[in-house]
């Protein structure tokens, strides 16, 4: 591919290239402008409809309000806790399950695999799930996020596919040395899977952090909600836990959006390859 590019692009800069650059700029602007407006407005004490390059009246008031209002920082902390715990649980289940299902001559492996795959075809549905969780006293508890996201069959299968790519000779050698399945898992499999763990861990983290509907369905106690829920209620339903604004409502809303995307924005530039390889483990594997 690289070669053809060199050969193909040697020609002079033509009309087509000009159009191409123009399209590039337009597409990039369409994606960036709404996000940039949020960034600028979150630091701007006055709300305006225009796209600004920079805040006209810089302030940190929006962020200060979030940090100082219990109704806002509490959901934020809940989001962090559930995301961290949920990602660890999700990774544990996905790797354990993937590892066991990757054992080709394990008796009963197919039964276990079909049991998992069936859940991708049929599900009890929102209400039966709700009634089960109610029995387990998980309604109105933020741990519902950990329980429902802890098992992700799709990610488990991705892990299994990845583990199957590890040379069988490594397993055999360890088995001959008397290593137990658990020992092989921790000493050989996991250390070889850092990239897969990173990308699937990120998939779990993003899913749990971003979850809104689970919270909306299961949680009514404000102390147990997460930040996405709080944000959506604040911006769209006008349910603001602040009575007197130190800053304009617009500033607070935008600062709220920033808080909801900040952890991701910080990680994204450094971890972009892991964010993207997640799909490729699944899509490119033939």
């Amino acid at each position: 591919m690289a070669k053809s590019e060199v050969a193909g692009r040697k020609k002079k800069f033509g009309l087509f290239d000009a159009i191409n650059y123009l399209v590039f700029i337009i597409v990039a602007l369409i994606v960036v402008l709404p996000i940039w407006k949020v960034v600028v407005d979150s630091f701007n004490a006055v709300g305006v409809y225009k796209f600004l390059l920079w805040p006209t009246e810089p302030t940190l008031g929006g962020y200060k309000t979030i940090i100082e209002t219990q109704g806002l920082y509490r959901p934020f902390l809940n989001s962090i806790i559930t995301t961290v715990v949920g990602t660890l649980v999700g990774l544990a289940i996905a790797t354990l399950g993937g590892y066991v299902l990757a054992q080709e001559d394990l008796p009963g492996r197919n039964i276990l695999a079909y049991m998992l795959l069936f859940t991708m075809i049929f599900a009890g549905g929102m209400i039966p799930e709700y009634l089960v969780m109610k029995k387990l006293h998980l309604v109105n508890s933020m741990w519902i996020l950990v329980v429902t996201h802890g098992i992700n069959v799709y990610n488990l299968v991705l892990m299994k596919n990845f583990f199957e790519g590890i040379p069988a000779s490594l397993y055999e050698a360890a088995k001959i040395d008397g290593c137990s399945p658990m020992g092989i898992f921790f000493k050989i499999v996991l250390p070889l899977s850092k990239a897969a763990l990173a990308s699937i861990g990120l998939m779990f983290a993003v899913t749990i952090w971003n979850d809104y509907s689970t919270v909306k369905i299961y949680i009514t106690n404000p102390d147990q909600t997460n930040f996405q829920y709080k944000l959506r209620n604040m911006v769209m339903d006008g349910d603001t836990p602040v009575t007197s604004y130190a800053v304009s409502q617009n500033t607070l809303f935008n600062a709220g959006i920033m808080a909801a995307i900040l952890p991701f924005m910080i990680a994204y530039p450094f971890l972009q390859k892991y964010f993207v390889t997640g799909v490729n483990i699944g899509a490119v594997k033939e």
Partner: protein
Amino acid sequence: MSKKKTIVTASGEMVRKKPLSLRIWNNRGYYLMFIPVLLFILVVKYWPMLGVRWSFYNYKPIGTPKFVGFDNFEKMFRTGDFWTAFKNTLVLSVMKLLLTTFASVIVSVFINEMGNLFAKKSLQTIIYLPHFLSWAVVASIFTMLLSTSVTGTVNGILKDWGLITEGINFLSDKKLWRPVFYVINIWKETGWGTIIFLATLAGINPELYEAADIDGATRLQKIRFVTMPALSNTIITVLILNLAKVMNMFESVFVLYSPVVYDKADVISTYIYRQTFGSAMPNYGYSTAVGLFKALVGGALVLICNYLSKKTRGRGIV
């Protein structure tokens, strides 16, 4: 039949297979490791499946559930709102799928044609970004952009240009809700959708382009006769994979709809949600029945798409 008792080792010799009980015992470590997975699967996935039986009951938060046969299903098929939700689910999902796939293909072709590697990588980094934003965040951003207040960007600009005098309430307008919904989906998912197309384009044999060059083909002709045919299989794959998820549409609508636009926006899942949590005395049986309908149609779609996927590309999706 004697084959059953023997296995062929890597070196090709036949050895007697150990008895099953011994093999299970030898693998006990693996079974132990599977216990947490099994627990999660049973509690989170299989236990709720048993709850499907409530669709044959009249089940209120107070009192004992009463068996009513197919009453809930009869009520469901007689209810106009249910059919509206079913139709909306199909229309919104399929339109969204077609529009975002189309946009992804176009953008992929442009990215593929870009010679400047830095521009290429930068644009990819930028356009993947919205995929990772939550629906709550995306809804918040667009609600504010489309708002009729003084800070609503779109209305502000339209007024500046003299196109309108009164602000338009985009998200609570029956005619505009769907187009706005599609635009937001395109904004969010087009970039992410390009990944799979770009992977296909990277795999095109360079000799095809070279041969086209020798034949004197223009850039547009090369796109038309080399790039697009190479993408057609991937487009079909993407459509099949996503067709299986048509019934799942939920959160994107959930965060963006409002009572005014139920006609155009309500989908099965949001309908189930409102039937249950939007009423003081819900009949869990009825919502479960609607959920069962959704699960059966969804499951059938997965199986159909799995079959199509095996036919077209030799491997299934589940």
